[in-house]
């Protein structure tokens, strides 16, 4: 800091000892987590599954949303129907020669298509049927072992129980339990519907078949891109000996890691074409007010100020974190 050209010292309202006291940290880390932090953490049920890689890293894989799984199922269902039609045509041609043979062939092939479509494609496509491929989903085992044929068989053999029987319950309830008492039919129906609705309740969104085979369906639909490094401008200005904004420790500790990452999001978006420059202005003046930025430097370039502030606070918080003093959240009050 002393090497920087513009040295700014702001008299803090609180001493740093006061600010970093254990009591202050505890009060912020505990039940007083601000609403905006909780809102960001609360994005539905926990939606990742943890795997351990060969290097011993714990990886979080995103679970497939039920909507995507349903979509993939519909695509596959469509393909099953098309395949059945194709097979039917082939059998029809055979039937022109020998009606009996054609008929048996049709029934046999339709049986195979209907029961082994999912298993075959999940085995050949490493856990991806054409429908899952379309939605970027994949079946994986929970323990990291390779998918085996009996696993995939088990996973898909329960599909009938989970789809067609509940559908019958909903559409033609009388056909399923022709001779049962009213209460028995009701109980069985509720039981079947409960099994079908399992993925709504299970923590990893597993179907009954997933439970039996110990598999989960994960999604790779959301692409994470690596954006431009935000510290590069500051680094270049430093390398060329140009002016950079310099902040005191107290100023950097006004905000915590959470706010640092929010600022990162804002800056990344500001790099996109057509970004809202007004927003940048407002963010900058908000920060300046909050950290007690001196009036005589108020007119410094907004873009440069925000990037320098980002680089400096990231450097500061990374340094603190490496010493075991992570500051997750901002501190109350203004520095003036």
């Amino acid at each position, binding site marked *: *800091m002393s090497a*920087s050209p513009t040295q700014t010292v702001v008299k803090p309202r609180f001493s740093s000892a006061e600010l970093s006291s254990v009591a202050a940290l505890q009060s912020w880390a505990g039940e007083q987590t601000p609403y905006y932090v909780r809102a960001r953490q609360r994005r539905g049920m926990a939606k990742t599954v943890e*795997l351990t*890689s*060969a*290097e011993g*890293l714990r*990886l979080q*894989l995103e679970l497939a949303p039920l909507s995507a799984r349903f979509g993939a199922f519909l695509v596959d269902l469509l393909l099953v129907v098309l395949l059945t039609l194709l097979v039917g045509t082939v059998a029809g041609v055979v039937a022109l020669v*020998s*009606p*009996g043979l054609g*008929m*048996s062939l*049709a*029934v*046999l092939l339709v*049986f195979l298509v209907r029961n082994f479509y999912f298993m*075959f494609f999940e*085995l050949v496509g*490493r856990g991806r049927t054409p429908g899952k491929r379309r939605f970027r989903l*994949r079946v994986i085992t929970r323990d990291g072992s*390779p998918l*085996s*044929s*009996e*696993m995939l*068989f*088990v996973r898909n*053999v*329960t599909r*009938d*129980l989970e789809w067609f029987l509940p559908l019958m319950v909903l559409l033609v309830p009388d056909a399923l339990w022709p001779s049962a008492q009213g209460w028995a039919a009701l109980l069985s129906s509720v039981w079947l519907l409960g099994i079908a609705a399992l993925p709504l309740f299970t923590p990893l969104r597993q179907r*009954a078949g997933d439970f*039996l*085979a*110990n598999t989960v369906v994960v999604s*790779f639909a959301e*692409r*994470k891109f*690596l*954006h431009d*490094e935000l*510290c590069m401008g*500051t*680094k270049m200005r*430093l390398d060329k000996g140009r002016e*950079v904004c*310099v902040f005191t420790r107290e100023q950097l500790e006004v905000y915590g*890691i959470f706010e*640092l*990452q929010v600022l*990162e999001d804002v800056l990344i978006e500001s790099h996109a074409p057509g970004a809202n420059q007004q927003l940048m202005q407002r963010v900058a003046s908000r920060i300046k007010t909050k950290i007690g930025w001196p009036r005589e430097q108020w007119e410094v370039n907004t873009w440069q100020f925000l990037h320098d502030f980002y*680089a*400096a606070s*990231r*450097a500061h*918080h*990374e340094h603190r974190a*490496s010493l075991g003093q992570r500051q997750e959240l901002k501190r109350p009050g203004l520095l003036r």
Partner: protein
Amino acid sequence: MLPPSLELRLQRESTWRELELIVNKAEYRGLEKLDSRELARFPLLLRTTSASLAVARASCLSRDVLDYLESLVARAHVLSNPAPRRFGRAFVRFLSVDFAVAVRRFLPHVGLSTAIMGLGVAVAFVLTLQDPETYYQLVPPEYAGGRDPAASTEDLLEVLYGTGDVEELSAFSSFLLSNNAKIGMMCFALGFAFGIPVVYLLFTNGLILGAFAALYHSRGLSLEFWAWILPHGVTELLAVILCGAAGLGMAQRMIFAQRESRLHALARASRELGRVVLGAVLMFCVAALIEGFFRQLVHDTVVRYTMVGLSATVLLLYFGMAGRAADAARQGANAGALG
């Protein structure tokens, strides 16, 4: 002034980008389509990037970098999982070893399931012989297809020798196949209702068979009846019994889940027993072929009984012998690894 983690990114970003390109390609076109250079680079890049991720988690506060690395390593890790066996090879391996070994492990369940079905046959046989009217309660009319106590002996004989439309009958047997296999798979899938539906299905299946047998017995056609049903029945009934055994095994593991949670015990059992059911479904297919073609073409009782003996011998030999050597070798290897 500059974050320490900036250095990590400046030095390693090219590695990450290279891995990302390979992963994109492999996800889109399959790992097999990578060229040899990419294939050789892939594990190296994955290891380096995993190391970057570990460092970044400990020191980097940039969410952009962290999220990117997390997602990249996860994608690469899933790709690098060992591939399942090739479909053809998996199939051969399944038939030559896995199926028979799995069945041998569940012999007591097979015995119990046979006993339940046998009980059903015996009960229906005795009841129907005493009072032919019971037949109507035991056999659903869609199964009977005119074969009931009211039919004349000639009509019953005609069914056995298929003097009707041969091709129509073979289509009917194909229908039976998908029906039987469906029931077999249902038996297994219902295992997690504590086995009650399984016992019910096995018993009622036995009842139908027993009622038929009693009907033909009362007309003195027992010999011809069994010659008609057993050539494919040996395979088909055994398949039903295996499915039942699988359902019973599931129920047992679920009720007596020893040190595991019930769900875990059930899941583990289902993977072992899934093999048994998968094999049984294949047996249903074989049975349907025998039924569809052999039975309609061969009408000689002696030849039919030869077929019964032949298929029984083949099945006995298969379940007795297949995969013993491979299984012993595998257990030896496991013991060696432990010792």
